[in-house]
């Protein structure tokens, strides 16, 4: 039975932001302007004070909706992921839900005690010892002293800073500091837990420990709202997610499709920012004069207008065309294409010289086509990094980074179990059978 623990209805939050009409450079050309400017500002501030409004710097005021008409529900024991780009409204949403700030309109109903973890180590005082800070931080997060005393040993063991408990935390390394802070927070026991980006602390071992703790919290049938930019963490901790974009819900549903929607959107936005044939935003570092230069990249497939990424069907093979502008003939050039998935993991590397020889390039516009065989990417979006090397002095003459290359879509090849995690490689064909006659191969490990 699913009971909604958090109900959000038409939630909006508006901020007022001030601008300076002189463009913010503060340069006023003459004394008269300076005087009228100052007088006008002072007059407006005084009016604001009398009306009891907040003071804003600048003389033009604009409304900014950090959240706009949000509606969603979270059921008891559910772990909900919240993703979105910077400034999408994630933190504002968490602040409203944890009662730090008030919404402008709309309504939230919460059933149960809420604890929020928007930052680790909130309220830690640098002069106090680790032990003292555990009590301080615990009290700030809403634990009673009796609670803390009961769990003190657990907290300390989790944080791995036993030896330094009586040292002021200002002498701690930043790793020790966040470990202690996370340890306190991890031992909160509210009915609803709101967590913002706190797993990015400590070394890999400690991060794994934090992840473990988070999933055990989730298993204890407590309701958790979890914001992160780490898609891996979202995938492993949550089943359902919402995607925020400019203060509204852009997608809602199973975490896996919502994450793909988010990553696709990021890629699409990048693609939109790119004018036809203009690869400059994707070049990094110093410009090198060379005999050739990359001028366009193209994947023949569906979705060929400039707004969309080329799309290929799951399980089909594809080609990549790299258009080069060659100024001087090159006997044997090398071209290297590295594919990354949207999580930033390298998927594969294609190197032209792997076939034994380089590419012979005559002056003019040349198109290098690579037909990729036997590589089946899983649904999602992919970036490319492309290097062009004339193989003269061992230095490449052009390189393109993070170029949004293509998306792979499941077009009816797999018709059931659509929301399963795809992994990173798609297996196009696998034969399954049951052999009644055979026994286990000799030497096989028996479990």
């Amino acid at each position, binding site marked *: 039975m699913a*009971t909604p623990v958090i109900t959000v209805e038409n939630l909006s939050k508006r*901020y007022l932001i001030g601008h300076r009409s002189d463009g913010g450079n503060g340069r006023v050309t003459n004394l008269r302007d300076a005087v009228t400017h100052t007088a006008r500002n002072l007059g407006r501030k005084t009016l604001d*004070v009398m009306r009891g409004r*907040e*003071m804003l710097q600048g003389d033009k005021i604009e409304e900014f909706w950090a959240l706009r008409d949000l509606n969603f529900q979270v059921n008891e024991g559910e772990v909900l992921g919240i993703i979105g780009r910077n400034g999408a409204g994630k933190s504002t949403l968490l*602040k*409203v*839900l*944890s*009662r*730090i*700030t*008030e*919404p*402008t*309109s*709309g*309504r*939230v*109903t*919460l*059933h*149960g*005690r*809420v604890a*929020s973890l*928007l*930052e680790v180590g*909130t*309220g830690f*005082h640098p*002069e*106090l010892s680790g032990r*003292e800070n555990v*009590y*301080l931080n615990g*009290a*700030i*997060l*809403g634990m*009673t*002293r009796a609670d803390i005393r009961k769990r003190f040993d657990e907290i300390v063991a989790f944080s791995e800073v036993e030896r330094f408990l009586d040292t*002021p935390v200002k002498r701690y390394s930043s790793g020790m500091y966040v470990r202690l802070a996370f340890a306190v927070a991890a031992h909160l026991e509210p*009915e609803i837990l709101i967590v913002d980006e706190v797993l990015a602390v400590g070394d890999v071992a400690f991060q794994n420990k934090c992840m473990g703790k988070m999933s055990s919290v989730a298993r204890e049938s407590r309701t958790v709202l979890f914001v992160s930019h780490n898609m891996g963490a979202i995938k492993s901790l949550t089943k359902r997610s919402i995607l925020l974009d400019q203060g509204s819900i852009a997608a809602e549903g199973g975490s896996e499709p919502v994450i793909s929607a988010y990553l696709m959107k990021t890629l699409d936005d990048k693609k939109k920012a790119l004018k036809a044939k203009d690869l400059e935003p994707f070049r990094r570092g110093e410009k090198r004069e060379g005999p050739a230069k990359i001028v366009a990249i193209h994947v023949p497939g569906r979705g060929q207008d400039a707004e969309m990424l080329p799309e290929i069907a799951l399980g089909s093979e594809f080609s990549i065309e790299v258009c080069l502008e060659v100024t001087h003939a090159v006997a044997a050039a090398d071209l290297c294409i590295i594919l990354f998935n949207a999580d930033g993991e390298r998927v594969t590397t294609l190197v032209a010289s792997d076939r034994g020889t380089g590419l012979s390039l005559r002056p003019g516009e040349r198109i290098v086509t690579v037909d990729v065989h036997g590589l089946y990417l899983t649904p999602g979006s992919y970036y490319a990094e492309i290097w062009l090397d004339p193989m003269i002095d061992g230095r490449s003459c052009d390189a393109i980074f993070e170029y949004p290359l293509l998306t792979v879509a499941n077009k009816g090849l797999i018709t059931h179990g659509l929301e399963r995690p795809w992994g990173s490689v798609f297996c196009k064909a696998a034969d399954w059978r049951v052999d009644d006659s055979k026994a286990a191969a000799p030497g096989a490990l028996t479990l």
Partner: protein
Amino acid sequence: MSDVIIIESGRQERNYWGDLWRYRELFYVLAWRDLAVRYKQTIIGAAWALIRPLLTMMVFTVIFSRIAKLPSDGVTPYPLLVFVGTLAWALFSTGLMDASNSLIGNSNLISKVYFPRLIVPISAVVVAFADFLISFGILIGMMVWYRFIPSWQVLFFPFFVLVGIAATIGPSLYITALNVKYRDFRIIVPFVVQLGLYISPVGFSSSVVPEKWRLLYSLNPIVGVIDGFRWSLLGGHSKLYIPGLTASLVMTALLLWFGIRRFRSTEKRFADLI
């Protein structure tokens, strides 16, 4: 499902005072933090807590008694008169100054965690109260030194301490709420406190104020508190001026009410403004 919390714009929370009770330990913890931090990395540590009020008392005695030649009432030793005045004044002034800066000083808490915001300024007053207790210990020492025995009026002393705390909390809440929005008050408050020291009867007895101005003078709530302290601790030599005391009490109650109202109505926007 234990409790239901509804978040809406402009909604007064029904369970605000309940929450305040649930977070009661935070009053103590925040006050403890401020006290614990204050004398960290000093050579003589907590001894400062004794030395500070003693020094203030000595300076006041010299200035008001020796230099300004103001009279004591009757037989009460002048240092005792001054010290009792300082006791009340220090509770008010440190409470007011610390509390009015408390929200800004704890802005990291305000913008990251929820708890009833009232706790922050009030725990600053709790710190001032802890200082007050230490000074009170010194006063007892001084009474022993001067062989001064308070009479039955001392039973009223706790009442005047409560009035003193209320008189501190009221304006503190008002100013701290304003201070979040308009930082001008951060600069104004020290001046007001400095001025208040001279217009409140700290270094002199309020009996030096001409009779016809006395009621008006008593509108300053601290006048009632200091007079009450002197009357209850130093005995009948300083007479209690009842109309003045009533005026001070009414002012205290009004300021407290205004302070809490102002604080509660702006509290929810603190995180956006701070």
